[in-house]
């Protein structure tokens, strides 16, 4: 019989049963009357023989009911009554849980959006990436595209800056170059128009562009007639072929448009420059393993295809991994650490509510005893109590969800979008709802179980005696144990937060090698074509510098091609004079090459350690090529020698004795944090030099630097200077956009924003943990004072001083605090090493932090205990003695 029929028939069946039982009793009574009994006697006898009719009828019904549901509903009704009777308790418990659960849901929604949710493309599981070193020369990609049989591949290159002109003020746009099959491989379609078609990544047929939806709406007012029109990007006309849907996002959220990569074998971008990441889609029937094997073979071939030497480690080890893994790989450990930390907060909240329940248990002993007397078994009482705590858990989850909503909005605005992929997609989706509900129910069980077991162990005679003191000795130990674990968990979290705070402190107090105060920077990006004639470019910049220097309040202005800490890496492959030439496989080292105007060092207040800085004459067309070198680079390539007078050159320049491309080192400057506050240079950059801004200063693209950042030392406010700067640029060349106008202070701050937001999250977690822990200590000590009121009265009557009473209570608090702190420190010692990768300048077992946390938590616990201690001290012994 299926359950639906059961449901329909259930009531009939139950009616049948009672009719039947009535019939049975009547029949028996009648029989007995016939045998000579009086009707009343007969009825009584029939009932006696039959047993408890109501109970039996109920038991008969139970066969048909979903017992647990009905019982549960009854329990829930009862719970509502019980919880309503005690609104203070309910409010505190629900709020405590809501904090814990809400924070968990918010972090989980982050984990869900970033890690769990599959990529928003068809058959996302077939999308792959190549791990380890997913950068290939464009020529390598073209070879790969035509030779791989198990995978379709596409290439993309982010961060192509393009000037949009002819549409009002010139605008700098963030573009991504893609191979023709990029969109079709992902399986996405255009919202308007079409995506790129095969063949559109060949030079000559590549002057197309696809717009992102926000750009289309802002800049072109959502005009559907845009398709087929020409727009001018970087001085070149491109036909708009499509607009992508709003929700399409791949890679950087900054991308505003897509243009085709142009694979030109004659260009030096084909092999040497602009290597590209590759994504792939497994062909039908192919497996990851097959793709892996094929890639391995292909990569060996790639070494022979490459026109030149490559370090043998370039693509080792070759490993094909799911695309999703590649995208989230970096953030996954961090997010899991966050999730782990927030779970600890939830555990503390659970321990707190368990404690509240235990405290309430004392006053409910009689109620429970009455229920037990009326025949409720231990399991039945336990279930009732558990239902109550689960109900609390669910209520906590409901309120927590509202908090999570706020939390998600906060996370979205606070976390750095560049370092967390898919950040903008965080939301409270069905999975988060499910998670929250599950957490609510689970926490209900977790914090409810111990109190329920404790409370259902009733001694009937003892509890029912009127006026018996509601002593619960065993539960006091349980309560103290819970608070000890709360403190221990809080210690772990506070230690983690402390380490992160210290890291951040170290990080922001690192001397970056330059003075960041009162410097304003702005990026100027003339089109490549404008600078094809270098003298035109140079005169634009020198005229601009002249105007900027004349602005009121500006004390100095200079240009640099790559501002430190700003994410740009300007580099060349270099050869150092006298440094052992590579004999075999070792390619030339890549070094950071800052192209600057003479005043740069003084504006940034980078001191000269040795030799001289640049002068205006160093930029003259036939001046001798010169360079500055940083201390660590000099020490690395010319150890123990004086670098001034030595030479360095770009490695690609032909060794023609008539062309003197060697640059003479004229001075030494200290290291500057170019990459991040944590490290001077990226791992793959071996050193750093400076060159004067001139036609000689060519970078890896073998062109003189076109895009420069102007830095201005000024005592005036940034807004007025930037307005004047824009005005000056517009007058000199109305096609040059001015972007990234920001103070150097802001640049430095932004470079530590990821560390700061993680620190902030942990600080919030730690704050929650400390407050919950303090509430826990306060609760357990207050309760024990209430329990021991008569005892305290006796002690006072026997002559104990008030001070003695206070220290008795404080001692209890101190014992709990010490145990909690001790256990917590041990746990923190083991746990904090998980977060070693998040730390800077501090070890995971930093002694100062551990000691400080131990002292802090002990003080907080003692402070929390001091309130009830003072109350105990002030007790009137007469009142205390009579206290029941």
């Amino acid at each position: 019989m299926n359950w639906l029929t059961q449901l329909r028939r259930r009531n009939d069946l139950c009616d049948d049963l009672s009719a039947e039982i009535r019939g049975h009793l009547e029949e028996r009574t009648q029989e007995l009357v016939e045998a000579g009994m009086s009707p009343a006697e007969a009825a009584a006898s029939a009932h006696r023989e039959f047993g408890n009719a109501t109970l039996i009828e109920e038991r008969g019904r139970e066969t048909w009911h979903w017992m647990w549901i009905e019982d549960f509903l009854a329990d829930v009704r009862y719970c509502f009554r019980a919880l309503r009777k005690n609104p203070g308790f309910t409010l505190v418990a629900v709020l405590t849980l809501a904090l814990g659960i809400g924070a968990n849901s918010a972090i989980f929604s982050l984990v869900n959006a970033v890690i769990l949710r599959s990529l928003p493309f068809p058959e996302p599981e077939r999308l792959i990436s190549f791990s380890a070193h997913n950068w290939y020369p464009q020529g390598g990609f073209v070879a790969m595209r035509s030779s791989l049989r198990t995978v379709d591949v596409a290439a993309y290159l982010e961060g192509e800056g393009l000037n949009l002109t002819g549409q009002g003020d010139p605008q700098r746009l963030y573009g991504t170059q893609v191979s023709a099959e990029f969109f079709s491989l992902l399986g996405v379609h255009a919202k308007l128009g079409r995506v790129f078609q095969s063949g559109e990544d060949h030079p000559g047929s590549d002057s197309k562009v696809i717009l992102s939806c926000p750009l289309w709406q802002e800049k072109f007012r959502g005009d559907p007639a845009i398709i087929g029109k020409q727009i001018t990007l970087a001085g070149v006309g491109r036909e708009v072929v499509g607009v992508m849907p709003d929700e399409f996002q791949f890679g950087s959220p900054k991308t505003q448009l897509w243009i085709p990569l142009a694979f030109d074998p004659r260009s030096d971008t084909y092999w040497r420059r602009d290597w590209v990441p590759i994504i792939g889609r497994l062909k039908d029937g192919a497996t990851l393993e097959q793709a892996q094997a094929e890639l391995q073979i292909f990569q060996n071939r790639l070494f022979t295809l490459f026109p030149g030497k490559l370090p043998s480690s370039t693509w080792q080890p070759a490993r094909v991994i799911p695309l999703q893994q590649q995208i989230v790989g970096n953030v996954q450990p961090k997010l899991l650490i966050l999730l782990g930390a927030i779970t600890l907060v939830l555990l503390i909240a659970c321990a707190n509510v368990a404690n509240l329940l235990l405290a309430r248990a004392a006053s409910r002993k009689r109620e429970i005893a009455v229920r037990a007397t009326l025949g409720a078994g231990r399991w039945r009482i336990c279930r009732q109590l558990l239902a109550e705590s689960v109900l609390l858990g669910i209520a906590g989850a409901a309120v927590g969800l509202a908090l999570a909503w706020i939390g998600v909005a906060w996370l979205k605005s606070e976390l750095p979008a560049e370092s967390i992929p898919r950040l903008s997609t965080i939301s409270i989706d069905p999975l988060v709802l499910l998670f929250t509900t599950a957490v609510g129910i689970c926490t209900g069980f977790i914090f409810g179980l111990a109190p329920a077991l404790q409370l259902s162990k009733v001694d009937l005679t003892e509890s029912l005696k009127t006026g018996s003191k509601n002593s619960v000795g065993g539960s006091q130990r349980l309560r103290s144990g819970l608070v000890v674990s709360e403190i221990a968990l809080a210690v772990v979290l506070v230690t983690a937060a402390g380490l992160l705070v210290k890291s951040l402190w170290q990080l922001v107090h690192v001397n970056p090698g330059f003075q960041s105060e009162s410097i304003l920077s702005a990026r100027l990006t003339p089109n490549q074509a404008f600078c094809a004639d270098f003298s035109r470019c140079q005169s634009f910049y020198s005229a601009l510098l002249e105007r900027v220097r004349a602005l009121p309040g500006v004390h100095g202005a200079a240009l640099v091609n790559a501002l430190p800490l700003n994410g740009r890496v300007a580099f060349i492959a270099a050869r150092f004079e006298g440094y052992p030439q590579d004999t075999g496989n070792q390619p030339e080292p890549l070094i950071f090459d800052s192209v600057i105007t003479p005043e740069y060092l003084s504006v940034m207040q980078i001191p000269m350690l040795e030799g001289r800085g640049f002068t205006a004459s160093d930029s003259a067309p036939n001046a001798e090529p010169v360079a500055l070198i940083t201390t660590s680079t000099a020490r690395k390539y010319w150890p123990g020698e004086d670098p001034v007078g030595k030479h360095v050159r770009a490695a690609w320049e032909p060794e023609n004795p008539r062309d003197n491309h060697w640059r003479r080192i004229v001075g030494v400057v200290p290291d500057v944090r170019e990459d991040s506050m944590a490290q001077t240079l990226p791992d793959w950059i071996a050193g750093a030099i400076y060159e004067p801004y001139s036609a000689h200063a060519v970078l890896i693209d073998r062109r003189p630097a076109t895009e420069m950042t102007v830095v201005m030392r000024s005592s005036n406010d940034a807004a007025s200077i930037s307005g004047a700067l824009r005005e000056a640029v517009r007058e000199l060349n109305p096609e040059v956009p001015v972007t990234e106008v920001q103070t150097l202070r802001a640049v430095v701050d932004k470079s530590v924003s990821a560390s700061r937001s993680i620190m902030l999250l942990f600080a919030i977690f730690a704050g929650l943990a400390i407050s919950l822990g303090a509430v826990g200590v306060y609760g357990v000590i207050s309760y024990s004072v209430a329990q021991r009121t008569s005892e305290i009265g006796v002690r006072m009557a026997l002559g104990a001083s008030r001070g003695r009473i206070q220290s008795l209570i404080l001692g209890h608090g101190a014992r709990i605090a010490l145990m909690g702190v001790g256990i917590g420190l041990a746990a923190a010692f083991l746990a904090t090493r998980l977060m070693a990768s998040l730390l800077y300048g501090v070890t995971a077992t930093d002694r100062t932090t551990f000691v400080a946390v131990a002292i802090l938590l002990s003080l907080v616990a003692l402070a929390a205990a001091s309130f009830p201690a003072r109350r105990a001290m002030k007790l009137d012994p007469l009142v205390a003695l009579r206290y029941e």
Partner: protein
Amino acid sequence: MSPNNPRDLFPGALEMMILRTLRLQPMHGYALCQFIKRASDDLLQIEEGSLYPALQRLLKNELVTAEWSVSATNRRVRIYKLTVKGRKHLAHEVSAFERMLEGVTRVLAPAKS
């Protein structure tokens, strides 16, 4: 307190007796009760009421069916009838019970040597 009559030998014994009785002929609850009492020579003092939860369980498991009709004494009664499934179940249970009984008897029998 166990839900079954304290003198029930083991869980399921009552059901087995009900099924066995219904195999003779369909009957209503009261008759069933009297029959079992008489047949056991009142050795098993079954609380009459306990019959009904047992009958509900059998109904639920589709081992018996029930229908309202009118008895010989002109009462409206619910007549229980064994189903095919019930018949099979009974045979199975009885043989299992007999095996168990034999085992218990052997253990309880005085040692032969």
